[in-house]
């Protein structure tokens, strides 16, 4: 083969690179997940109970576990230590000036307590609790919120779906309730008669500053 013919042949090979076709076609990348692998990672529990593992736990077992593994942050009775989350109480506080949003006062579904404790608690030792322990802790947290008696035993079979505030949630309705925020021609001139300053951040003075130590400042609202 002449040099130029060789080059032409190489070029033809280059042209023949099989570019992948439409994205909808399967590539065959990845490999099938084994049932054991799915079981190891898929621990989520839905409000209808789908995903609950076999097992059970009592309020008293939960209380003992709670004092060992949880109370340092959440308090002996779920009242919360320092800025750590409060788990119990706050009943009927949601309309108040300072709502106390706890499992009993705010959370909609029991499943979330089980799921979250199982996946992410204790803080710093996630995924360490066995299903029976999570059932027991869930039972104790429910008992702290006066939702079950102290001799209650929680299991997959009697797992309650709803917490008191289950009906307290509805899907995002901004498109209708905030319709007035869509304005064709917002005001450009003489939009109000007078402007008065109604609040100053400097008066509260809780902004971090290299020159001063204000860790102990008392904010009006934080994030969680």
């Amino acid at each position: 083969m002449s040099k130029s013919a060789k080059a032409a042949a190489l070029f033809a090979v280059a042209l023949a690179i099989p570019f992948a076709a439409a994205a909808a076609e399967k590539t065959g990348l990845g490999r099938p997940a084994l049932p054991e692998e799915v079981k190891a990672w898929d621990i989520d529990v839905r409000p209808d109970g789908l995903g609950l593992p076999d097992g059970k736990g009592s309020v008293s077992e939960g209380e003992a576990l709670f004092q060992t593994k949880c109370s340092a942050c959440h308090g002996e009775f779920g009242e919360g230590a320092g800025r750590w989350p409060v788990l119990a109480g706050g009943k009927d506080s949601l309309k108040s000036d300072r709502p106390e949003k706890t499992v009993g006062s705010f959370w909609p579904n029991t499943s979330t307590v089980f799921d979250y404790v199982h996946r992410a608690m204790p803080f710093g030792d996630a995924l360490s609790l066995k299903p029976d322990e999570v059932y027991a802790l869930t039972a104790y947290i429910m008992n702290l919120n006066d939702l079950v008696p102290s001799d209650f035993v929680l299991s997959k079979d009697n797992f309650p779906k709803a917490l008191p505030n289950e009906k307290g949630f509805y899907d995002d309705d901004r498109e209708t309730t905030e319709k007035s925020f869509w304005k064709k021609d917002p005001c450009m001139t003489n939009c109000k008669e007078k402007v008065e300053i109604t609040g100053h951040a400097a008066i509260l003075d809780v902004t971090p500053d290299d020159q001063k130590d204000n860790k102990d400042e008392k904010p009006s609202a934080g994030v969680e």
Partner: protein
Amino acid sequence: MSEPATLSRRRLLNLGLAGAGAAAVAPTLAAAQTPDPLIVERQEWTQYLGEGVNAKPYGVPSKFEKEVVRREVEWLTASRQSSVSFTPLHALDGVITPNGLCFVRHHGGEAEIDPAKHRFMINGMVDKPLVFTMEDIKRMPGRVNRVYFLECAANSGMEWRGAQLNGCQFTHGMIHNVVYTGVPLKAFLNEAGVSPKGKWVLAEGADASVMTRSIPLEKAMDDCLVAWAMNGEALRPEQGYPLRLVVPGWEGNMWIKWLRRVEIGDQPWAQREETSKYTDLLADGRSRQHTFLMDAKSVVTNPSPQAPLKSKGPNVISGVAWSGRGAITRVDVSIDGGKNWRSARIEGPTFPRAMARFYADFDWNGQELLLQSRAMDDSGYVQPTKDELRKVRGTNSIYHNNGIQTWLVRPDGSAENVEVS
């Protein structure tokens, strides 16, 4: 052609002044009386050789920029591992956030994952549950580059009850805007074959919070990305290295970092991060849930409490605007607390669901200013005032505060976070 200076000066004056203050700031045009030693004397950086080309194999900012860093507000949270740091918006320009300055929100600290040990699983209502390695993921066809803002749902959340933190870094800095490189989530879901009954996707992280969120399948199939790079390099560990979910226009909590799994189901999972958190309590005691979208919002970054005005005369009001509903089409600026407005100049690239930069050039005569900005997007949404928001929502919804911000600029050039009637 740009407007003559005199004309723009007159236009600004026509906006009406919020009270003329004493001239405490020195004028800029003082004529030099003696030669400037920085010019007439040889400086050391001109005389001596500087460092070699590879003294810093991974470059860092000038030492004179050491104040341009993320900051945290310790009283906000109980632990440093489930907390937030803030982007120094007041010190940045343009639209792209430098990787090292992108705000950080963790719930279980920063996971440090060897990419060779990272796995990505798809399971649930699919024909074939799958496992991918990072190598597999980077071989997927259909790779894209997209610019998006990521805003924490709680950005400005501390301001619901009134002006609290003094600086746009703290009031608006739970946001960043970068170019992501990745593959549409849709490609992975197609690979596994989603059941016709599938309606929701659960995304899960590999960090110690094992973070989970339910996402409507429609969104997952629309514009969500599985991304491994930001601004041209691998994701930073604090941003989810080696893999994160990108959920354009939607609240930052849903952008699962260290993404290890997506599951398909026929209803949402009501996880902790979409029941206890990231639900919006209104005044009647009920709460909105699934408030995914981040509405149009803006803030003047300069001047602002951390970036005071230094001189009278020509100055540049600058800021950023963004909307989860689409592209920013207009930003108006007021210097008199919202009595009068003029449209600012949007400068630089603008993309849907990405941050836009705006400028309003003005002459400052030393008067007191009440500075505001008001963003509009291509859905016709106009950024509301804080009072308009509170009228609908009360003061306890924590998240989604996109109300108009006011800075008081005093005659000495200093600025403060205030609320106005």
